[in-house]
């Protein structure tokens, strides 16, 4: 993915190399998140803990939405006897 540059610092070693990786990953994660207030403030700095926090909440929201949609789809399956239900059934089974 990203090039691993090693920095010359007092604390060299594997920890610094993966620090870059982690930065990149966090930035990538930040891009994936739905940004609600970021269009104005697009600084180069991203707070890692904030990104992680928002990731947790976002994943929870997504899971909840998946559950809701599954609920809805299953209701659709049960309620309608039309071709629609047959379609959905054939897609899933």
């Amino acid at each position, binding site marked *: *993915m990203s090039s691993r540059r090693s*920095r010359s*610092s*007092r*604390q060299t070693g594997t920890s610094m190399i*993966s*620090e870059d*990786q*982690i*930065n990149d*990953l*966090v*930035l*990538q*994660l930040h*891009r*994936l998140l739905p940004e609600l207030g970021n269009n104005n403030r697009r600084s*180069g*700095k*991203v*707070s*890692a*803990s*904030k990104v*992680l*926090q928002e*990731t*947790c909440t*976002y*994943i*929870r929201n*997504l*899971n909840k*939405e*998946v*559950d809701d*949609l*599954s*609920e*809805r*789809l*299953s209701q*659709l399956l049960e309620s*309608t006897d*039309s*071709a*629609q239900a*047959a*379609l*959905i*059934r*054939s*897609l*899933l*089974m």
Partner: protein
Amino acid sequence: MVLLNNQDFMGLEWTNDVESLALKDQDISVRARSDEDRITNGLKWSDDYFYYHQANFHLQIVPENRKEEENSEKDLTLVVPDEHSETGDHHLHIKDYSEYNRRFLRNKHAKPKRRRVQILSDDESEDFSRKVPLVTRKSSKRRIRDDMMSNKMRTLQQLVPNCHKTDKVSVLDKTIEYMKNLQLQLQVMSIMGTNPYIPQATLDFGMHNQLLTAMGIAHGLNPAKQTTLSPLIAASNWPSPPFSNLSFPHSSNQSLFPPPASSPQCLCGLVRCFPTFFDFSSNTMGALMNSRIFITIVLSYIIGSIHAYDPDALQDLCLPGAVSVAATLFTAEPALSEDVLTKTFQVKSKMVDKIKERLATKK
């Protein structure tokens, strides 16, 4: 009494945090007890401080600095004289680490002389249950930051299924993949929920398995989730269902056809999130799969709008390619053979003629 104030204010949560922090800081407090240690460790910590100071400029990711001003009762003096026992001045709201950091930064500018280590006294170090022993600003700052990071990493690990390695990089990798899959899954499911006209024909053109695979992967990533649909899905093997000739009852299902406004939004939402899916670097099949799914869904929308006798719906779609696909297919010259169109869109030949008329007049 100030101690009590803080405790009341923060409640149990703070105590827990303090304890977890205290356990880790215990070694520092133990070290700090002897004068020799203080000097040695003081130097060590100041090295860390300088290093960390440098690192601030290199890293793009900085500790969170929330600008909260409402906690005004924390007038902290960060410097603790050695023999000073507990006073209200030294209490910290550990719950609010950013505040802690912010104050440290502020104080750094205010009192440059006092960068050096300040050590907790013996009295303070014994009392971990009630307050945090003060240690070097920078190392404790980093420690707090690391604690927060690891807490969040642990949370993420629990949220993301099949995440067995505990190192940060792989947790983050898996989180990214999982989020992308979740987004894809949601889009597919919302399309399915709103658009009943996902015809077998398009699925039969080799896209079928990919769509199912996508859903399978999406569901396979949630082995623990007990959705009502999961018993219907075999996670690993996908028997291809027999291609059954469904005739679409056009008239009766028109009421079921959703207003076209919702579907373009779904699809535009899809379009927006698909660029991110294309850097699915860990899984080239994933990219292929996503593009096929995309095409499937676009086609299904087109077909849906055709069934509703509403080619105008195509205009609403913000994807210019989609409009021309239908138009091109139906009005091609020399015309495509009727049974190709019939089979593709699962429409009867009369419909094909009607659509041709409509599209021709639009031109």
